[in-house]
């Protein structure tokens, strides 16, 4: 663990004692009267916790300043995310301070909401449940999102004590197809984890592991372990899917296929493997069965059905055959039906054939997502509710009304049936709207809890600050309303400790506090039980392929729900940063446009921004069109997560909700849900909507901006250094004295004091997930401009993920993080009449807000267009302002701002170093963006320290400077993306 992590951990305290005494102080700001135990004013305290934005369960450490959490970072010790976070994890903190977060329980009385105290609410619930329990079996039902074991147990015990069934766990992205496939092929009803990092050829059939699939941060990291250029090579990754998405953009070849034909392609591959007897040794008769299934799918047929590029198909099959350590991962994305199941089953078979003992699939380390019930079960839950209304229905942190927007029979039972619906939710979302009691509970950052991403992993949540709305945690609520279950434990903490002692064998205070301060028990879990036998092929697998009908390419347009790295299943859609940061692929913020293939658009006669209305028998949505070559012709793609009708000011009315088009029915086969969009109609609505796009052209116009290099080139010996003057050939001019050349520089070289801060960006590692951007918003108090102002071209992002597609050569698509380059010859500086921007002694391009008078000349003259002007006084609706980082100025209207390399962190490091009378060490300063990058694409350090990682990377022959021919000598040095000559 590097030094900084250690320091941070040393800083990590626990509120164990502080929060024991629950005295109310509103807003719970640090007051001089009473300092909490481990709080020093001006010093950050870090509390380890677990991110609950999605079922992945990454470890976080929360930065607490003066009593409030102002920033989340990944917990470096946590096995899942190893210190990294995704965009949603970074934005999670906004949930706490959300202006629309409910402050008190709301009870519905003749269709108006009345607030009530928490105690009233609790006693009301207690009394309702008591009555219900008295009235017999199953009078209390519960639908909950995935929780940690502690809560699930508690819920179960409580419901038990009321003589009711166990709670149903609902996740919109239930990955049930995957489970079903695993069940039928391997007899494992669960979701194993995949050792992507161990493979050399990876074929994905739509699994969007860079966006939402199972555990994005984890898999992004592992993906880059196999796919980043290292000692002379890099793995290959093929993405077979009707749409490209971030994951596809990171593949060596995106193989566009007609929707619902992944299984066909997969079977085609199986057929070929069997034909060439390349399969590992598998039981004779299994082989025969498989052969039988794959029989119909010879090359031509596959190509004809799926409409994929023949040579790409061959490439894929070749590479898989050549591969030493091939791995295939299944399909994903919500709103898929039987085909998804079959695709996953076929994928399993393929994996089995390629490697019969499934060495790269870890069946012991199973994702917690598997706990989710199938949608079929969810439907029956509501059907029961309709047929036989319960007395009390608990909804914990779920939003089925949104997730099943197109489905009849979800809303109604909640509203009409006589049952008393209590909804534990911090926001008035679509589901809460139907409840009788909306009960805000403390969020993960405010409460005692536990969430293990996989079995045997203890990952704790602890209050990193007191509940902003003074709400109890849902645990506490249940402890109080279900005394039998509580066994006279009163606080969530007691419950937690009790269960942890039982299940994780923590017996002494020390281990406990240690675990608490580190965020959990990790070493134990990361050791996977040896000798755990991997399951083999089950007989049942055939069933998946009975009644196998091929849809293939259809004429009628199809709608696909695309996974969104920003909104997940829609629960993040209310977080301003998530909305403000544009989607990395479309570069559109705040809106969810319909992706249309240019050809399709031409046929439909629509242009970018034309409203497209999509109607199915279940519902209608309309969204602006966005022409993109990243989607299969004939398919319309719409990202999941937006189109809320409630859920706070930032979510309400933004974008469209594709789920509104679907209805679900459970399939006769293996109980997986079937999604239907019957009689789908798509037409141009004739209206216009300006796209809130933050990007101009996606073509680099050959300006030496986002460069790629092929592996083969890199294997050849390096040619002599460039020395030309113009765009076609220019040298790397480091922002150091040696970067100056009297032949080409009017200005004499200049030295720096001890440090010359610089950043290296390895484009080969950047996957474009935009987590860095979010981290920057959080760390530097960036303003949220809002949809309208983004349309006016006034986004405020200091760090922007730019995407440069080479249409003719998709393999060369590059995500390029663009931030202030801190040039040595920064064009922005000298044009300022008042020295507001100038060159610091350590090479930073300082921007002095107080001095700036807003001539905007610097922004005009910046070739990288990274400067942002405060066109207005931006607003932070209360209490969002409580999140602001006290170490960073909030800029007023009329001043220019831009990336500062997180100068506040540099200054801190200076302070530390000074106290300890030493120089700042390499890696001691990490700007927010660098800290959070899941794939370590960003490295920060001083160029004057020749040992620093930056200095090392700069020596890499891939190193170049964006538009280096301008001779601005940027301090952000990019490393060319390495591509396979496809």
């Amino acid at each position, binding site marked *: 663990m590097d030094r900084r992590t250690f320091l941070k951990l040393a800083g990590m305290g626990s509120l164990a004692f502080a929060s024991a005494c629950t005295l109310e102080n509103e807003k719970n700001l640090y007051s001089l009267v009473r300092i909490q135990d481990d709080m020093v004013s001006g010093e950050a305290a870090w509390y380890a916790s677990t991110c609950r934005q999605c079922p992945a369960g990454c470890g976080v450490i929360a930065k607490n300043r003066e009593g409030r959490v102002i920033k989340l970072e990944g917990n470096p010790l946590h096995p899942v995310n190893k210190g990294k976070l995704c965009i949603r994890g970074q934005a999670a903190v906004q949930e706490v301070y959300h202006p629309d977060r409910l402050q008190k329980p709301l009870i519905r009385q003749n269709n108006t909401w009345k607030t009530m105290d928490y105690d009233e609410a609790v006693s009301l619930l207690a009394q309702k449940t008591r009555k219900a329990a008295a009235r017999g079996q199953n009078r209390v039902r519960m639908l909950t999102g995935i929780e940690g074991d502690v809560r699930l147990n508690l819920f179960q015990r409580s419901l038990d004590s009321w003589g009711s069934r166990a709670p149903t766990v609902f996740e919109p992205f239930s990955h049930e197809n995957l489970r079903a496939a695993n069940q039928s092929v391997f007899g494992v009803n669960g979701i194993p984890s995949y050792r992507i990092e161990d493979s050399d050829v990876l074929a994905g059939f739509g699994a969007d592991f860079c966006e939402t699939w199972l555990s994005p941060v984890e898999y992004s990291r592992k993906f880059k372990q196999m796919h980043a250029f290292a000692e002379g090579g890099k793995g290959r990754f093929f993405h077979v899917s009707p749409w490209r998405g971030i994951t596809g953009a990171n593949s060596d070849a995106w193989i566009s296929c007609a929707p619902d034909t992944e299984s066909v392609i997969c079977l085609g591959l199986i057929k070929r493997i069997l034909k060439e007897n390349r399969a590992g040794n598998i039981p004779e008769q299994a082989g025969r069965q498989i052969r039988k299934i794959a029989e119909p799918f010879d090359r031509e047929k596959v190509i004809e059905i799926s409409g994929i590029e023949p040579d790409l198909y061959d490439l894929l099959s070749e590479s898989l055959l050549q591969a030493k350590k091939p791995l295939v991962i299944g399909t994903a994305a919500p709103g898929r039906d039987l085909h998804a199941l079959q695709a996953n089953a076929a994928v399993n078979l393929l994996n089995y054939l390629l490697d019969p003992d499934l060495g790269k699939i870890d069946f012991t380390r199973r994702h917690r997502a598997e706990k989710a019930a199938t949608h079929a079960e969810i439907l029956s839950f509501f059907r029961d509710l309709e047929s036989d209304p319960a007395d009390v229905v608990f909804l914990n942190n779920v939003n089925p009304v949104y997730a099943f927007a197109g489905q009849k029979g979800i809303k109604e039972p909640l509203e009409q049936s006589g049952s008393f619906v209590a909804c534990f939710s911090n926001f008035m979302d679509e589901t809460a709207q139907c409840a009788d009691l909306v009960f805000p509970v403390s969020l993960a950052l405010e409460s005692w809890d536990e969430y293990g991403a996989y079995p045997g992993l203890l990952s704790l949540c602890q209050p990193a600050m007191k509940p902003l709305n003074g709400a109890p945690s849902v645990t506490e609520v249940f402890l109080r309303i279900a005394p039998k279950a509580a066994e006279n434990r009163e606080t969530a903490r007691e419950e937690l400790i009790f269960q942890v002692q039982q299940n994780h064998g923590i017996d002494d205070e020390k281990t406990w506090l240690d675990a608490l301060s580190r965020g959990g028990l990790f070493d134990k879990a990361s050791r996977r039980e040896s000798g755990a036998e991997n399951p083999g092929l089950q007989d049942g697998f055939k069933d998946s392929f009975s009644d196998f009908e091929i849809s293939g390419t259809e004429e009628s347009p199809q709608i696909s729900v695309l996974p969104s790295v920003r909104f997940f299943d829609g629960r993040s859609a209310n977080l301003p940063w998530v909305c403000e940061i544009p989607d990395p692929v479309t570069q559109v913020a705040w809106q969810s446009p319909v992706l249309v293939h240019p050809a399709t658009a031409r046929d439909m006669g629509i242009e970018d921004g034309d409203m497209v209305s999509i109607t199915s028998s279940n519902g209608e949505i309309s969204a602006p069109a966005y022409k993109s070559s990243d989607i299969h012709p004939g398919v319309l793609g719409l990202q999941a997560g937006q189109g809320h009708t409630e859920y706070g000011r930032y979510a309400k009315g933004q974008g469209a909700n594709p789920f509104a088009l679907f209805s679900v029915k459970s399939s006769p086969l293996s109980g997986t849900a079937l999604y239907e969009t019957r009689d789908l109609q798509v037409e141009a609505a004739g209206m216009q909507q300006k796209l809130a796009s933050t990007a101009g052209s996606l073509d680099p116009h050959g300006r030496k901006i986002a460069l790629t290099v092929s592996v083969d080139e890199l294997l050849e010996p390096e040619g002599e250094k460039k020395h030309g*003057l*113009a765009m*076609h050939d*220019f040298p790397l001019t480091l922002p150091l004295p040696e970067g100056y050349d*009297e*032949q*080409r*520089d*009017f*200005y004499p070289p200049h030295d720096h004091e001890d440090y010359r801060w610089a950043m290296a960006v390895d484009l080969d590692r950047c996957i474009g997930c935009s987590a860095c951007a979010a981290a920057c918003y959080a760390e530097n108090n960036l303003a949220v401009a809002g949809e309208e102002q983004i349309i006016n071209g006034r986004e405020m992002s200091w760090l922007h993920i730019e995407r440069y597609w080479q249409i003719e050569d998709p393999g060369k698509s590059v995500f390029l993080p663009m931030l202030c380059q801190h040039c040595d*010859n920064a*064009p922005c500086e*000298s044009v300022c009449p008042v020295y507001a921007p100038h060159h610091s002694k350590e090479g930073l391009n300082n921007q002095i807000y107080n001095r700036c008078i807003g001539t905007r000349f610097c922004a005009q003259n910046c070739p990288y267009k990274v400067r942002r002007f405060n066109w207005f006084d931006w607003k932070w609706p209360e209490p969002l302002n409580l999140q602001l980082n006290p170490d960073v100025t909030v800029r007023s209207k009329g001043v220019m701002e831009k990336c500062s390399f997180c100068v506040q962190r540099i200054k801190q490091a200076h302070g530390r170093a000074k106290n300890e009378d030493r120089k700042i060490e390499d890696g001691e300063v990490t700007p927010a963006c660098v800290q959070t990058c899941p794939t370590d694409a960003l490295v920060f350090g001083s160029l004057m320290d020749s040992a620093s990682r930056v200095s090392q990377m700069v020596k890499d022959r891939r190193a170049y400077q964006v538009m280096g*021919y*301008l*001779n601005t000598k940027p301090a952000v040095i990019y490393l060319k993306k390495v591509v396979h000559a496809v």
Partner: protein
Amino acid sequence: MDSRQNRVFGAAAALAVLGLAAFGANLFFGSPEAAWRAYLVNFLLFSAVAQGGLVFSAMMNTVQARWSSRLSALAESFAAFFPVSFVLFLGLFFGREYVFPWMGQDLHGKEVWLNTGFLFSRDIAGLLVLYGLGFAYLYYSLWFRLAAGDSSAGLQGRLARFWEGRSADPQKYEHRRYVFGVLYLLAFAIVLSLIGFDLVMAAEPHWYSTLFGAYTFIKAIYVGFGGLIILAACLHASRTNDFLLSPPEFLDMGKLFFAFCLAWADFFYCQLVVIWYGNISEETAYIITRTMLAPWNRIAWAVFIICFIVPFLILINRKIKTVPWFMTVLCAVVLVGMWLEHYLLLGPALGNPGDTATLLSAADVLMFLGFAGLLTASVAVYLGQFPAVVKAAVSGEQKSAGGDIDS
């Protein structure tokens, strides 16, 4: 007087031959680079003097200035160099490997513009147009200058007799003179820009500066006026003819010279400051080699001082402009300065780089004198053919009502 003319002519011709000898010697026994470089430089400089000289007349005619008609008469004599200049340009063809360093380089698309065939055809066309218009203007201008019924020998006489034949209406001639004057000025601006781009700027193919064309023709006017002053002053001084200029004429001429000295400096600074401030390698390298780094930086300073500082400080003074001999010296110095300036622009690209010996050699000086001789000779011939020009200039009596000098 004719004898005198001849003497001048003879001397000039001798110089020319000397220069030619130097050229040949250098070409065959010395370094051909240097020889051709000198050829190009002097061609550019003295063509510029001639072209710029005629500009004076055309300009004054266009703005209908009254005070300058006698000087205009002299200015027109420079047109006599046009044919020579044209031939000299054709001569460049034989030295193309030396004067076009970009030949055989990878030009990254520039080859569409930079290829000898196209270059010569367009520049030849340009020069033809320019000189053609020049002569057309001269023709109509002479009509006003030559007294009718002149029976003297030479072109003057023939023209006069030719005009005798036809009844001309001054209005029409006036108008044509005006039109051709304007056209000449336009052609001057465009063609000299072209020459500047093709023969000077392109010597470093990667480099470009939008102002360079304008810079070239401003420079041409500057040296042209210099040459005119020298000519006028010499005639004024020489006792053998009765050509005399009034102090105000010298004064105004001096003022104009001063003005274009400033303009030249301004155009130089306009390029320097922009490129200095941008510091884009593509642009800076050119300037740096020529102004900041040895050996050329010395020449740069020399040029700056000779062509700007000195004239500036001197010409601020009002009186000095009316001292013919002094102005002659000053203008001569400036001409030499401009000669150096051409070396500065072309040297690094043409000479074999770095080797200081190729900066300047005796041969260069001789060739300078040689070309100077050519120019003088042509002018002498012209004045010999049109004695009336000088005479008319004295009497100031002419056909058109434009003769009076305000003072």
